[in-house]
């Protein structure tokens, strides 16, 4: 049971996969826009964790560089996304994505 006593890089990867899956399931199943949004953040951070792990595996800093990119883009995306939900709430008094279906035939 060495995998319980010694924490290796693989543990980090497994955690990243679990977090990513959790986030993806949330994006697919939840209807509340804010929760969906948080799940997206969860997926992004899972990817970040994976990048850091791979960087440690290869012993260089390329992964770190990518993480900074992801964080920057995620911040911008969060700003835009939250603005969209604010606008949605002002118009329809809801943040549930399935209720924003005006363009559907």
């Amino acid at each position, binding site marked *: 049971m060495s995998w319980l006593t010694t924490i290796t890089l693989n543990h980090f990867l497994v955690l990243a996969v679990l977090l990513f899956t959790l986030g*993806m399931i949330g994006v*697919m199943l939840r209807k509340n826009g804010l929760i969906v949004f948080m799940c997206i953040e969860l997926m992004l951070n899972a990817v970040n964790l994976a990048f850091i792990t791979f960087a440690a595996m290869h012993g260089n800093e390329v992964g770190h560089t990518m993480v900074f990119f992801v964080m920057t883009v995620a911040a911008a995306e969060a700003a835009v996304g939250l603005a969209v939900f604010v606008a949605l709430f002002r118009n329809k008094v809801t943040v549930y*994505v399935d209720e924003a279906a005006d363009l559907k035939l």
Partner: protein
Amino acid sequence: MTHHESEHEAVAAAPIGPGRIALWVIAAGLAALFITLRLNLSAGIDVTRWLVLIPLMPAVACLINGVFVNKLPKPLVTALAVGSVGVSFFISVILFIHLKITGEPIQQVMYSWMAAGDFSVNVSFTLDGLSGLMALVVTGVGWLIHIYSIGYMAHDESYSRYFTYLNLFTFSMLVLVLGDSLPLMFVGWEGVGLCSYLLIGFWFTDNEKATAGKKAFIVNRIGDMGFVIAMLLLFWIVGALDYTTLAAQAKTVSPMWATVICLLLFFGATGKSAQIPLYVWLPDAMAGPTPVSALIHAATMVTAGVYMIARLSFLFVLAPSAMMTVAIVGALTALFAATIGLFQYDIKKVLAYSTVSQLGFMFLGVGVGAFAAGIFHLMTHAFFKACLFLGSGSVIHGMHGEQDIRKMGGLDKLMPITSKTFFVACLAIAGIPPLAAFFSKDEILYKTFAVHYGAPSWLGAALWLTGALAAACTSFYMFRLYYLTFSGESRAPEEIKKKGIHESPYTMTIPLIVLAFLAIVGGWVGMPHIFHALPNYFEHNLEETLSVANNAVGVVHGSAMLEWGLMLISTAIALGGWIVARALYKDARSDVPARMKEKFAGIHKVIFNKYYVDEGYFYAFIRPTLNLGLFLWGFVDTYLVDGVLVKVSAWLVRSAGMGLRLVQTGNVQTYLLAFLVGAAALLAYLWQGTSL
């Protein structure tokens, strides 16, 4: 007072008549000619660069008249249309003289038309002995007919449309003869076909005339198919389509393929030049205005097939059996059409069958290897047949549209100029020495007897006999036509007599006089070689163009006795036909024709109805095609196309749409699921076989 008479008075009252204008134009043209030739010699102006102007002039006039149709004043339309062809004619004369002085064919490359790999076709023109002669005939005779048309079409409401078409025709015909590659010839070939269609159906409100136009167009397309296939085969085998390369590499074509190609080309020629089996459109083509019949359906377009064979003579000599076919078809057409001409009563129909017959003589000439003689007959035929057609047009004009020679007679007193020029042209076509066709037709018949390239001797003699019989018929029906139309008492109906039968205006009679003059002297440029003292300029002119073919055919060593003998027989035949026709039809006094008609009623009926060829074609080709069309429409289109294809395919698309519509939920989360599944499948595919 009819409008014809009022026009006569207007002509008399005007200070300068159109005849005098024509004389001034000719004088000015001659002056311009001499000045240019002097400049060319002294100041070094390069006249060879004017070559493209020959076809371009009528094209520009056609564009202007065509764009502003019915908007320009009539004198301007006339000046543009007639002037442009006149300028083309003078440039042709200048360049032809230049060619004769330098001896170098003139070539002008305009631009590259199409190029693919090693294959390329230029838009380029060449003027050698053959194409120069053709350009002279087209622009010269064409110009006279343009001038004639001023008078003939004066009262037509579509005056400018008529000249637009006529200019377009001249342009196309010049591209056909001057172009130096087969594709360019084909452009002209189709262009003249289109103009022929447009001008036959010129008075398209008359259903019969519109139908005649369609018939000509469709029959010509059948022939063109042969031309196109032959062209593609040549491209496939030789890989080039310009005459220079073709002539240089003609030897690489195997005899079998040469025969196939030449037969296909000849099939194209039978359509354009109205030979058996595709001659049926030409007699119907007489529905067009008479100057059109003269220009397109006698002097120029219908001779395109003869020109094409002479141009590709280097190819035809490689296929003796194809040449034999050409000769046989030519001789049969000559006799066949001549016999139909014997019994026709429509003045233009007689001339139409005569044209088919004379074209047969030309094909007989080129078919037996006498290429120069064929082209010689082409030229002289252009003169006398244009004169005959324009004369018949003058008669129709004076008779207020009547074309039935049974209602004519006695016109020699009323229309003296038309009558005299017509008589001269009759003498010429019959082959009475020393007029034009005596030299050209005799040359063909002599060469048929003596050369018969690719055919056995007995066939040469048989072809000669066929040709001689056709010549006898020609002489007979032409003088029959002349005497029925011009001699004796007038048989015109009262209402035509009341309107007044009159001689045509100067614009029409001057071209007649010029053409009659040419019909007399036109043959003198090609004296037979038994007249040792007199040179044969004509053959000399074509020597370079036809050198390959002439070498293949070889020099004929016929005895002078034979040639004299055949010449005497030809003359006797021509005179015999004249004498018989004169005895039977002069002054319409003899009752022999009527009795003969009764005695041989059966034969007369068959020939009078043109051997029922049109009816045969109707039952053999047209009705099956119509039935096929009905079947395709009634069953295939209604049930198969509309029923099965259209409705079933529409139902399929509609149900597919209905099903697929459910997939598009508009819910991002559903799409994401699809995306996930897709990504997983892709990864699984990429990982298969890779050990982790």
